[in-house]
């Protein structure tokens, strides 16, 4: 809803990739206000949005999925973005809606980000098929880790150019460039790996509709924690199987997750491993067997693994792994958000900016809050089952 970013894209190296007619901009922005994005701009641009969507959809032989990419803490991405979800659901009910949401980190400089996030969460709960939460702090930590590896010259290891998950152009970019470019590249790689099996051949393909089918056991619990490995490739040509196994181990470490979460110490409802490159089924199985004992799965899904093998690795790598987990470790992120929200809301701080927008009332806030609390409650209930022994239920008895 302001022109700067879109203009930059249209003048940048990818300008020919984007259809210049398929964009909508305004001038003033949403002022970090969910209500402005959702109610004001939503209403204003609804027709235009629909028209452009329909146009894009017409060009598709078979439309399977929408990717919505936005942040939760601002006004446009958060407000208009979630408005869009509802439009997509009404207009294209059979098409999956995958949402990549950037959650605000602890040191976020937008004061009203808790309000925006919670209001957006309600929409995500109700209208998204699958949400991949990401937060800036985790992305930044990953970059720091890479920088450390690259600059330390540890044991004379050299990092292969083009293999950094943070840079699509290769080379070791220095700190002058915006850190956001490197961070965003990680998210871009997430989406690349997510769609790799649909774009390239493999011995065990996985389409996007299979992600929702396998990883969403109940409609409300559709938040998937993701991790990408490896972060870089060493120039060592002989990759022993140990390196491969290390990739699998890393995928479960809390340092590689794209939000602040520790899946190893929480409860798994389901887990997907999307492998690319020269990895075969025996490697996959060996690693699942190896890692399984250290992970806790919910009682009714003890073997809850979905796997896929794509033959084509990402640029600069021999193999890579994207792990998607439906795990109760998202709960702390949500609880944190709720706490920050409550701190503001108790004092009614900045509320008037929202309430002055037509269509916004205090009930919007309380409903959004209870929607989030209900979700947190679901995760808590699941956590409570963590240490319970798994019993086989009595089976149907039949007459022979």
């Amino acid at each position, binding site marked *: 809803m302001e022109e700067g970013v879109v203009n930059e894209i249209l003048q940048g190296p990818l300008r020919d990739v984007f259809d210049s007619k398929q964009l909508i901009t305004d001038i003033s922005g949403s002022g970090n206000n969910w209500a402005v994005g959702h109610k004001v701009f939503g209403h204003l641009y609804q027709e235009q949005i629909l028209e452009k969507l329909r146009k894009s959809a017409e060009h598709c032989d078979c439309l399977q999925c929408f990717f919505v990419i936005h942040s939760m803490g601002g006004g446009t991405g958060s407000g208009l973005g979630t408005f869009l979800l509802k439009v997509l659901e009404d207009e294209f009910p059979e098409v999956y809606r995958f949402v990549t949401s950037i959650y605000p980190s602890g040191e976020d400089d937008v004061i009203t980000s808790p309000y925006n996030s919670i209001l957006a969460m309600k929409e995500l709960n109700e209208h998204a098929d699958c949400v991949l939460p990401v937060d800036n702090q985790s992305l930044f930590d990953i970059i720091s880790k890479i920088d450390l590896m690259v600059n330390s010259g540890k044991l004379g290891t050299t990092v292969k150019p083009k293999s950094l998950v943070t840079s699509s152009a290769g080379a070791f970019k220095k700190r002058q460039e915006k850190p956001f470019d490197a961070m965003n590249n990680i998210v871009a790689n997430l989406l690349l790996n997510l769609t790799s099996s649909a774009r390239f051949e493999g*011995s065990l393909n996985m*389409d996007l509709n*299979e992600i929702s089918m*396998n990883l969403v056991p109940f409609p409300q619990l559709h938040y998937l924690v993701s991790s990408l490995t490896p972060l870089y490739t060493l120039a060592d040509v002989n990759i022993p199987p140990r390196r491969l196994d290390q990739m699998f181990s890393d995928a479960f470490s809390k340092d590689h997750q794209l939000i602040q979460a520790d899946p190893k110490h929480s409860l798994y409802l389901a887990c997907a491993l999307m492998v690319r490159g020269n990895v075969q*089924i025996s490697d996959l*199985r060996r690693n699942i067997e190896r890692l399984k004992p250290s992970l806790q799965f919910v009682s009714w899904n003890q073997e809850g*693994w979905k796997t896929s093998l794509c033959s084509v690795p990402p640029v600069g790598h021999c193999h890579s792994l994207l792990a998607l987990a439906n795990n109760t470790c998202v709960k702390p992120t949500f609880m944190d958000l709720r706490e920050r929200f409550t701190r503001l809301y108790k004092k009614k701080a900045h509320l008037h900016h929202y309430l002055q927008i037509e269509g916004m009332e205090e009930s919007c806030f309380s409903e959004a809050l209870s929607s989030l609390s209900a979700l947190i409650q679901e995760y808590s209930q699941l956590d409570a089952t963590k240490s319970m022994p798994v019993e*086989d239920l009595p089976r*149907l008895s039949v007459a022979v």
Partner: protein
Amino acid sequence: MSIVTVQLGQCGNQIGFEVFDALFSDSHCTQGLCSKRENEAYRSSCKERFFNEEENGVPIARAVLVDMEPKVINQTLSKAVQSSRWKYGQRSCFCQKQGSGNNWAYGYSVHGPRHEESVMNLIQKEVEKCDSLGGFFIIMSMAGGTGSGLGTFITQNLQDQYSSSLKMNHIIWPYGTGEVIVQNYNSILTLSHLYRSSDALLVHENDAVHKICAKLMNIKQISFNNINQVIAHQLGSVFQPTYSEEGSFHYRRNPLGIDWQVQPPLSRLPTLGKRSLSEQLRFNTSIANLVVLRGKDVHSADVAGFKDPALYTSWLGPDNAFNVWTTQRAFSKYEKSAALVSNSQFLVKPLDMIVSKAWNMFASKAYIHQYTKFGIEEEDFLDSFTLLEQVVASYCNL
């Protein structure tokens, strides 16, 4: 007599290719350990069963390829063309763009009716090319969405349309530790429906074949190619021509002539009390066994061990339950080879495991909304569970 093969989904198509390749390679093998005339008879019998003749001499597989997304079929077609020894018919494929999402309900209730006419037409065309139809060989996996759901739907259609032809489904049993999270649901829905419309379910378990690759073949990094090739090899050794009882120079006419549907005489079934599963399965009891021997000294082979009455159930003795097919012509360069197809309690444990896991998941209602969305209700699940519990119990009571 000819067999029409229907390859469904990624698994079905990948395996189908390996099967035809194995059959072709073997039939053109020069080290048959038999006379030239013998070899010729073998080759033309194999050809009649599985391949069609083309003008320029390249044999075309009697197969219909079905998948709901294009990548695998494209790969399969080009692999066949690249080998330049045999190929698939250009118009023998049916393809869509979006896949079945590992959802049995989607494969069965959405893709099935939507594409029924197209797929059945393709099969019809293939059938018309056969002088005499022996039956259908349907290759599918249980864990996914297309092979399992659409495969079941197509089998039901074949039952309606070609009720007097044999339908044998080749089922791939998924790895125990998960390839697909909802594989147990997909499996029980597949098995319970197929029980009503298929004549025979020939099963290969991924876990078992994996073990063969690891322990018997010592392959270090096992790929699906390895697994599929082992499966194809086993199938080839059963389906290639063998002598019929009538004479030693004519190959058996009906390649799928395995008469597995044995109805136990109801009045003679002993009534048994309930026994625990582990107790009942201490000894693997068979309903019927088929041994296929190929190669050197095949006529002097001693199969007495298979005729031991202790192996069989009380109401069907080895005279009826045991069959041997032999042929001097060696298979795939093996001087001697033997294959065993068995209808026995061997699969009870795996079946019980799947039912148990599916039941646990069903009790929590996890993922059910994905199926009810497309018309498979909780009742359908319960029907499936009931039927499979009966199957388990029937086998246990042998």
